[in-house]
């Protein structure tokens, strides 16, 4: 596959239509990064997909790390060896890595190091919309915010320069809209990376013992103080519009885009200060701006971070300027900046009228189409078997403790097998916690990648504390939800051969767990049996439900030129609807009172043909004769 080859081959001056994340990957090459690490997470994942594919040719060392904390530690080590390093993750990943961040801001870095966080305002694919710019203030590190793919690429280079200048790690903050926006990007020259790392014993300490940390802190604050005095006009910050306008705007990131569209639509000519560096806030530029405008409105996503800083500056020197934004309720505190909401928030202040939209407001409720597990997804079979086992053993009130991955979708009907789901690895930690609080049976669901990421310590804890619980490890070979990236359990055949394949069973058994079974979820009988055994046992029992992700299987079968489909024999279908009601593969639907299988959607897994799903054996494999 060479989907991303063009990003490596593109010539300086050439224009490409790039996703924000693709532009960032190109920016990594143009900045001459030597080592890049990540743990995949939407909306940051495509950066890794690109780098994984082209790293070898680009002379870049790339690592899918086991989790974000380790990724950041890896990148930090490269930086200490004098190399340019880049670590990237989704916003909540930075929580996992924050323990590292909070210390490396103190120790400082040697080679330039940039940390990308892809935030998710409005929570398109996340559990919260935390604004990771807070980490900039929290750790005292610079924060850079691009507004489009071109800036994403170009600002990355500046971020490395700032890191180099002050010896500080720099946070590069995108949001879903920036990472997943496509636009035209003009390429620059690729800088070949310097791979001659050396950790010099030059007396500089990176040991955060209290005695050192005490001094590190003062150094850190003086670096940030210096940066706050640099204005970065022309590279990161700029003003546009009428300098004498009564109202001025300060904005950044995607919020700036939405603001500009609203201003242009209503032909409002006011001065806008666009900030590309939001921590430390460029003091002189902001003061200059406050001196020109009686009213300043701050538009940003998600929390009022620039606004707090600007209010502080105004309090100290510009009491006559009135500041507006989220803190006085002009702009909503939650969710991304929606164009319609911003347009109405600003209509009074800017004095334009919004033409009442004649939006189509149909009264009828449309049947929803929530996200579903793919046709042929092995998780569907596992959830089906667990539910059946619980019923057969007459277990009342089981607690389903779920985790982060495609299998989170087990939360939806007909399975409803998720009572709690918080963060990576929480299925086992929370599950084991429940055993201290209640006698209800606990079933934890965790995927292979999540197990490696943060499940192992929780499992150690559960065993060590004699919890009684069933842990179902849903192993589909890859990190499926983010686009099938490899993890430590991925078979070598599916990787570039640069990593090794670790055995989940060996890890589990090494903890002294005796009740460990591996099943193929496509075989419902075996899976059901193993789950019932696990539920009957004392202590921690583990079922590894192993079957490749259906999309991988699709790709493999297509290559092998094989195509299997199933169909319903109408005469045998009794319209009991067990399959649609309790198994709910998206390829199954009801038409004219009978179940049918859409041959385009059917993945040929055959699970629905097993008697647990179709007791009347009305579903059969399609042969040429049919």
């Amino acid at each position, binding site marked *: 596959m060479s989907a991303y080859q063009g990003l490596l081959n593109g010539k300086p001056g050439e224009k490409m239509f790039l996703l924000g994340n693709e532009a960032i990957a190109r920016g990594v090459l143009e900045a001459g990064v030597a080592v890049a690490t990540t743990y995949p997470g939407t909306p940051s994942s495509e950066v890794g997909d690109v780098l994984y594919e082209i790293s070898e040719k680009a002379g870049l060392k790339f690592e899918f790390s086991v989790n974000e904390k380790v990724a950041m530690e890896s990148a930090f080590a490269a930086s200490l060896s004098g190399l340019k390093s880049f670590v990237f993750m989704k916003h909540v990943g930075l929580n996992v890595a924050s323990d590292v961040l909070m210390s490396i801001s103190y120790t400082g870095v040697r080679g330039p190091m940039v940390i990308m966080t892809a935030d998710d305002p409005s929570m398109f694919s996340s559990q919260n919309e935390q604004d990771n710019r807070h980490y900039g203030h929290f750790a005292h590190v610079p924060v850079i915010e691009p507004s489009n793919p071109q800036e994403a690429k170009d600002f990355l280079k500046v971020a490395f320069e700032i890191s180099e200048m002050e010896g500080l790690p720099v946070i590069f903050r995108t949001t879903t809209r920036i990472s*997943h926006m496509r636009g035209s990007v003009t390429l620059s020259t690729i800088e070949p990376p310097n791979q001659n790392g050396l950790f010099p014993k030059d007396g500089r300490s990176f040991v955060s013992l209290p005695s050192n940390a005490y001094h590190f802190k003062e150094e850190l604050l003086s670096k940030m103080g210096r940066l706050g005095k640099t204005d970065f006009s022309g590279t990161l910050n700029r003003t546009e519009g009428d300098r004498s306008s009564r109202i001025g705007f300060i904005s950044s990131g995607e919020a700036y885009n939405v603001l500009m569209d609203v201003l242009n639509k209503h032909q409002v000519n006011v001065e806008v200060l666009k900030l590309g560096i939001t921590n430390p806030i460029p003091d002189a530029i902001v003061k200059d701006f406050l001196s020109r405008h009686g009213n300043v409105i701050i538009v940003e996503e998600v929390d009022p971070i620039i606004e707090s800083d600007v209010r502080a500056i105004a309090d100290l020197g510009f009491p006559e300027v009135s500041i507006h934004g989220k803190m006085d309720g002009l702009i909503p505190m939650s969710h991304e900046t929606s164009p*319609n909401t911003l347009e109405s928030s600003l209509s009074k202040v800017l004095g334009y009228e919004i033409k009442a939209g004649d939006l189509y407001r149909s009264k009828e409720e449309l049947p929803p189409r929530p*996200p579903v597990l793919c046709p042929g997804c092995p998780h569907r079979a596992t959830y089906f078997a667990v539910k059946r086992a619980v019923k057969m053993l007459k277990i009342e009130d089981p607690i389903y403790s779920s985790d982060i991955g495609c299998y989170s*979708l087990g939360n939806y009907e007909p399975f409803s097998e998720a009572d709690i789901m918080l963060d990576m690895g929480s299925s086992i930690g929370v599950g084991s916690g429940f055993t201290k609080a209640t006698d209800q049976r606990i079933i934890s669901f965790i995927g292979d990648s999540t197990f490696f990421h943060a499940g192992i310590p929780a499992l150690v804890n559960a065993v060590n504390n004699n919890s009684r619980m069933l842990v179902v490890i849903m192993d589909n070979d890859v990190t499926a939800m983010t686009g099938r990236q490899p993890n430590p359990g991925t078979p070598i055949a599916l990787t570039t051969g640069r990593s090794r394949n670790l055995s989940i069973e060996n890890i589990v058994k090494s903890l002294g767990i005796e009740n460990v079974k591996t099943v193929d979820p496509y075989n419902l009988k075996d899976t059901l049996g193993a789950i019932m055994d696990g539920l009957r046992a004392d202590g921690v029992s583990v079922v590894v439900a192993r079957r490749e992700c259906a999309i991988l299987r699709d790709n493999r079968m297509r290559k092998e030129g094989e195509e299997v489909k199933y169909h319903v024999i109408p005469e045998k279908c009794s319209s009991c609807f067990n399959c649609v009601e309790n198994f709910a593969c998206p390829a199954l639907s009801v038409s004219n009172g009978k179940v049918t299988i859409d041959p385009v959607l059917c993945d040929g897994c055959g699970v629905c043909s097993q008697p647990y799903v179709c007791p009347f054996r009305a579903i059969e494999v399609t042969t040429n004769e049919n």
Partner: protein
Amino acid sequence: MRTNILLAGVGGQGVITLGMIISQAAMEQGEKVLMSEIHGLAQRGGSVTVDVRIGDFHAPIIPDGEVDITIGMEPLETKRALARASMGSRVVMSTEKMVPVSLSIRHEEYPDLQDIVSSISGNFRLRTIDAVSIAENLGNYKAANIALLGFALGTGWLPISVDSVRRQIEKTFSKKALEINMKALEEGLERGRSAQVETMEH
């Protein structure tokens, strides 16, 4: 020129590919283009929308009420997406249904296609085509998105030239898939040129 195009469908139907081809064709014509794709939780089978904005915009999302044309790969998803469009705006839609699991679980059937068509055509300028059948007849149902694109071009409602679309298709597909997609484009075009507003196209 400023045009906001909203694409809607189900994950796996090639909605993003459609957006890429339209965007790059417009770019080739010298236009500024932004496209926004949202990757939700599901790899396949969920609702998908893609916003394409041609012209001097900053933000990649189309404000509600400012959609100029909606291109729908699936009737229910088209209707759902139209909550963002102003009444009277243009809609092209492929009529092949994909039953959402939320219905099947309750043994309910897909709403009557004719009802969906008439409720949309009562409020919008709608043209429909059975793009999936065209693609299937050509030998690959996956070319339905390109048949629909041809249809949309044929109506004259898209501000891009057929030639630049052809060139993008050549860059996107190869060999057999290219051949089928080109035929799908031509057949769609043909139907689009003769299609009437508010009628079913068979």
